[in-house]
């Protein structure tokens, strides 16, 4: 009898617990922001005691804005990866709070990719006080989502407040922002003077065509120095597709071995993992579209997609030849990051398709030297630049209280004073001022050289270039580090760590040339091309090229390219071209076209 009652009441209690748990799980935290369970939350002042670092008292500094917290959602993986354990506890955040009264609650939600996370969160209709995203130009996958949100007025119009800011007011000056940034992102015609999107990382002075070794990333192909020396070649003299092929053959015939005693592959994948974008380096001579937008114009004024030209098949045949002769790692396009790093570190690749001078394998070992770069289809060796760059964007939620305070906070971070604090840390602790420029203290320099994240990220929480908490350097704009701080990044004039990286840039100066206008595909966001965009977004030209490269025969490769052409036609290629012709007629500089 006892046992029967025990069973009965146990069942009742269990059922009760299940119902309560179920209902609790369905509850809402009520803050109207991102789900905390799936979000990296950096904590708040309540649990850190940082709130009293800068309470609003009578002795407010001149930089005081408001005593409040701003919740920011970042769709930038670099920020997520470098997030301090608790932002509020960092010296920089505490000092910012003291100076401005504002505390930042920065959140990052990991996902397949940042654009997908953004799509999900925007679709849920809730935006925290502000968002930050990558956005170098309007071809980024985030752009259609951000524009859609702006069109639906999910963001606050900041135009009434911009003129009162110290830094962002410069965006209103003619020529400060490059034309496409101004007309496509900052001040879009369709918004009738409203400003929803604020570009980030804009250089104060356009130095895009200058070669500045202190700040240059020398990317592209790198060859093992020992192999280059043994073959007696000057790696910078390899400039054509034929020269590259001959070099690969010479490497194969040289019978070089890797660290494990295996034959090396003359051409290996990029250091960070196989990818189709390596084609930009190994096939530059066959790349008809220097702006990598897929479309270009012939000398006769005809707009074509690259697949409609011979260049597509030339690319395919070149790689097919390399594959057939064992000159390229067969997993060149698909190898995962871990293995790609392994084949690079064991020197299984004589040439890495893509790496740069700030990767430790390059600047620490001295075993790799830049190769090429190859000339483009015009026979030009110069790298293409598009003018003043911009790498990110931020926007304020339409529901945020006092958006002018949020703008003022972002503006303060962008001032020279704000950049100094957020990039160099605390004066007297992390740097001292000498001759008007900050000089890192020995202790901080040592932490920087050792890559001590506990100190750089969790304790100080400054950017230190890109070696600390990247959020701050991402939020900088009106950047002129050489002029303001006497060096391109904190410690670059003193640190031994990156001395070799800078030396590589000094020894391998590269020409740059300006190509004005936007990639053709940037215009697919035009509202009249909405249905074309939906179809064209599903097509992947680079993947198609790789598919053709691995086809069982040349005929099948051609068939794959023809099929892609047919898909383009079906997606509305004719309508798109018509739109591009109109654009070109109105303003030839609106499109990044160039021809022989």
């Amino acid at each position, binding site marked *: 009898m006892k046992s029967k009652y025990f069973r*009965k009441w146990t*069942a*009742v209690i*269990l*059922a009760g617990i*299940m*119902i309560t748990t*179920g*209902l609790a799980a*369905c509850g809402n935290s009520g803050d109207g922001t991102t789900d905390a369970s799936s979000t990296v939350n950096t904590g708040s002042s309540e649990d850190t005691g940082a709130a009293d670092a800068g309470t609003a008292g009578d002795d407010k500094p001149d930089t005081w804005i408001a005593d409040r917290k701003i919740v920011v959602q970042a769709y930038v993986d670099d920020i997520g990866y470098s997030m301090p354990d608790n932002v509020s506890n960092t010296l920089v955040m505490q000092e910012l709070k003291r100076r401005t009264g504002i505390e930042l609650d920065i959140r990052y939600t990991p996902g*397949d*990719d940042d*654009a*997908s996370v953004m*799509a*999900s969160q*925007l*679709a849920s*209709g809730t935006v925290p006080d502000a968002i930050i995203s990558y956005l170098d130009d309007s071809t980024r*996958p985030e752009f*259609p*989502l951000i524009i*859609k*949100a702006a069109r*639906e*007025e*999910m963001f606050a119009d900041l135009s009434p407040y911009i003129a009162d800011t110290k830094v962002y007011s410069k965006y209103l000056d003619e020529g400060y922002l490059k034309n496409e940034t101004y007309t496509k992102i900052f001040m879009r015609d369709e918004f009738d003077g409203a400003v929803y999107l604020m570009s980030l990382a804009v250089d104060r002075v356009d130095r895009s065509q200058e070669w500045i070794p202190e700040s240059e990333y020398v990317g592209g192909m790198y060859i093992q120095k020992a192999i280059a020396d043994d073959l007696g070649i000057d790696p910078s003299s390899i400039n054509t597709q034929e020269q590259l092929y001959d070099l690969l053959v010479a490497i194969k015939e040289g019978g070089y071995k890797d660290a494990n005693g295996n034959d090396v592959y003359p051409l290996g994948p990029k250091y960070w993992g196989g990818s*189709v974008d390596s084609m930009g380096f190994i096939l530059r001579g066959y790349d008809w579209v220097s702006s990598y937008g897929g479309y270009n114009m012939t000398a006769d004024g005809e707009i074509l997609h690259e697949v409609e030209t011979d260049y597509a098949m030339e690319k395919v045949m070149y790689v097919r030849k390399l594959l057939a002769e064992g000159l390229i790692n*067969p*997993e060149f*396009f*698909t190898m*995962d990051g871990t*293995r790609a790093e392994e084949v690079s570190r064991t020197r299984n690749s004589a040439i890495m398709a893509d790496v740069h001078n700030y990767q430790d394998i390059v600047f620490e070992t001295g075993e790799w030297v830049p190769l090429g770069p190859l000339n483009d289809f015009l026979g030009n060796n110069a790298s293409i630049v598009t003018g003043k760059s911009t790498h990110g964007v931020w926007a304020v939620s339409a529901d945020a209280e006092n958006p002018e305070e949020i703008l003022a906070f972002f503006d303060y971070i962008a001032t020279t004073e704000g950049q100094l604090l957020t990039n160099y840390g605390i004066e007297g602790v992390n740097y001292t001022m000498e001759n008007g420029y900050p000089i890192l203290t020995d202790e901080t320099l040592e932490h920087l050289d050792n890559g001590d994240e506990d100190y750089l990220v969790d304790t100080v929480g400054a950017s230190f270039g890109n070696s600390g908490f990247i959020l701050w350097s991402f939020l900088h704009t009106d950047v002129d580090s050489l002029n303001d701080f006497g060096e391109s990044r904190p410690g670059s004039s003193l640190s031994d760590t990156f001395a070799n990286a800078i030396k590589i840039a000094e020894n391998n100066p590269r020409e740059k040339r300006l190509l004005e206008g936007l990639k053709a595909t940037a215009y697919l966001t035009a509202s009249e091309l909405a*249905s074309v965009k*939906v*179809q064209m*977004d*599903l097509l*992947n030209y*680079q*993947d*198609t*090229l*790789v*598919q053709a490269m*691995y086809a*069982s025969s040349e005929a099948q490769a051609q068939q794959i390219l023809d099929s892609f052409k*047919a*898909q383009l036609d*079906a*997606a509305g290629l004719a309508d798109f071209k018509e739109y591009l012709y109109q654009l070109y007629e109105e303003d030839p500089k609106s499109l990044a076209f160039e021809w022989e």
Partner: protein
Amino acid sequence: MRKAMKKYWVLYLMLVPCIIYYILICYVPMGGIVLAFKDYSFKKGIWGSPWVGLQYFKMFFTSYDSQRLIRNTLSVGLIKCVLEFPFAIILALMLNELRSAKFKKITQTITYLPHFLSSVIIITMLQRILAPNTGVLNQIIGAMGGNPGTFFLMESKYFFQILFSMDLWRNIGWDSIIYLAAISGVDTALYEAADMDGCSKLKKMWHITLPSIRGTIGLLFIMGVGGLLSSGFEQIFLLRTPGNMNFADTLDTFVVRVGLQGGQFGYATAIGLIQGVVGLVLVIICNRISKKITEVSLW
């Protein structure tokens, strides 16, 4: 009914969480289906967004890719629902015949384990096993005098074979559990009678075990047919390479590309709706046929 409820009120109480679960997780979200007929606005939400009628369905069925996507999805669905179906039954029959309890348990554990591995781990292993020149399979081929340079994952002709092998290896043990449970419920007197009649093991399997679990097999098959037009996202997405994308692009990967990556929520919902409706129709048809022929049915 009231009397029964009063008598078994504890059992009914225990049922409440399940009912709440199904209402909240399965039925309430079904309202989102209306997105398939709306131009989704972030701000206005599902109910406030403007209607666009059948625009997305028209867009899909007139698109260049629709036939290929449906063909690929059906192929993957057939592999998973039909081709793989008998293997779990065969494994269950074989396990049932094992006399050593220890060996049986070890075998069961080994066959169940892959089910608990994530697709990412399985496909990473697969990439290593099938890698050209350095992969185990290619090294075996090379040791036997063949060409060790075959890049299996980049050749579309191997895609379905790889998918079939991988999925079977992963699920066969797990899927066999339910059949083993059904087999354990077969009346042992039937086997004893068969033994007395001199039946061989194969005959007992054919004439006793299989007919006894016919109902379970039928139910699982009918339910499996509903998934014919869903290929599962993870495996296909992770197995995709530029070389095999002709086959490795299905409605499920399409939905993710269009919906999550492209922000076309209405379009993605429409494709999802097509999959759901086709699945439901297939289950109904299959159920009717089964009821007529074998008297086994879901309802």
